[in-house]
């Protein structure tokens, strides 16, 4: 059975060459979950504390039991930038694109771009849902912003002109 182009998907932002290694031992559970449409992140198996992606022991209870499990795919913008520099051959978008650092309701923080093209980054504090893009056939988390939630020109993207 061959994978169709439609299955692989064509990301709005990046060239397939930037596909992450879905079999990377550290993040394989995240990519496997994303392929199912679930946001899978690590927490402490003993006390439930949200852990950083590279964390191997809990900083609250010292447990080394790290459990990767689906979390609620929602959060708020911790910080955001609109990236104007588009590296030829890597970025296929023709307009500046957002990168968002999201504080998830689960307690995790995760950097992602948006699910669909956005000319500017969302404001800090704005609520987001988490969906998934496909980069070279690998699903990765992406922030979903409803049109109603977007202000036309967020302050963070104001071009300063005298």
């Amino acid at each position: 059975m061959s994978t169709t182009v439609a299955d692989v998907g064509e990301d709005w932002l990046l060239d397939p060459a930037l596909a992450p290694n879905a079999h990377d031992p550290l993040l394989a559970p995240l990519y496997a979950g994303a392929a199912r449409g679930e946001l899978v992140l690590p927490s402490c198996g003993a006390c439930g504390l949200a852990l950083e992606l590279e964390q191997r022991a809990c900083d609250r209870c010292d447990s080394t039991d790290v459990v990767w499990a689906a979390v609620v795919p929602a959060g708020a913008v911790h910080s955001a930038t609109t990236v104007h520099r588009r590296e030829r051959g890597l970025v296929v978008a023709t307009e500046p694109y957002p990168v968002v650092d999201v504080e998830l309701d689960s307690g995790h923080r995760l950097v992602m771009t948006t699910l669909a093209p956005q000319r500017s980054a969302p404001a800090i504090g704005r609520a987001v849902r988490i969906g998934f893009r496909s980069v070279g056939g690998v699903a990765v988390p992406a922030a979903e912003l409803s049109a109603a939630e977007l202000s036309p020109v967020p302050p963070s993207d104001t071009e300063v002109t005298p």
Partner: protein
Amino acid sequence: MTAPATRAGAAPGAPVGIVGLGMTAMSLEPGGAPADLAAQAVTAALADAGLAKRDVDGLLVNTSQGVRPDRLSVALARQIGLGDLRLLEHLEIKGATTVAMVARAVLAIRAGMAETVVCVFADAPLQPGGTAGSTYAHSGGSDGVRGLERASGVLGSVPTYALMASRYLHVTGGTPEDLCAVAVSTRAWAVGNPDAVVRTPLDAEGYRASRMVATPLRVLDCARPVNGAAAVVVSGRPGQSGQPPVHVLGMGFDHPVRRRRAGGESWFGGGRRAADDALTMAGRRREDVDVRELYDPFSVVTLCLLEEYGFCAPGTAGAVARSGALGPGGDLPTNTGGGQLSGFYLQGMTPLVEAVTQLRGAGGDRQVPGVTTAFVGGIGGRIDHHAALVLDREAA
């Protein structure tokens, strides 16, 4: 009867100092392998100290984590023709490494484990066929957190620092004018530094006209990568060239753990202990510091570090910058050679080189009058690692 072997290290009570300083030209063009550049810098530093290679019994090596496979290693000792050494190490604390090398050298000399130690950094990110930005954008791989972030459009280091800058301005209530003020004052210093790679005067209008890279960071908020190297000679004995001694009076480190977790800040609120420890060891107060030389890969980092190290109250560095205090003639001279923004990006060597230059009174057009005490701050990672030095023209 034979005399006991001479003990290495400093004479008891004598301060350890930086007795030699050497640099290559800072090139904006591709060319030069890191080992060749390092060899040039070491030769220049020894000549500056009036010493020969046979006088050296220690070598510490710092190389970029960046984009080249032919990075420096402890093999450099053989490559540049040094003889038998007591101390030979490749240190790695990311951008904090240069300061860590000096501290390592001082401790080894004080402990009698070496007498004269060369510390060198070399890097050559500029390669034929691409800009430095392009080279950085293509590096990082597809594994780990870096691979995930690259698949999210985080190419090179600017987007990450742009997230930090956005958050900094949000937390402090600042505006892009705060960043502009840093870029302008740092450039004003570079105008007086013949080693700086960008020396054309800059005003706010010129800053605002510069290309946006990732909001709020414009190209003039970002360091200028160069191909080059710098080396210092650290010794418990005076140099032989008549250069004024620069004593290492204080050293401090801080590696704060700030979790990336909802409900808190992960970039701000660390590093103070590095500054406190260095100043305490030196017996100096913040108000004794005449020049602050801080690792500034992006304008926002200068503001962060002035606050983290206690030179500005939290949230006020932007206003201080807008007052002109950081620039020539200001009350808080900072990054007096043009820093990494306008001077040259040789990681931790950039602030160290300028501190030594100012303490020697060799700053020419950008010399701050009457400098006796300099503070050097090096950071690594995403402001995760802090290393500080207090350097002084006088003995303690």
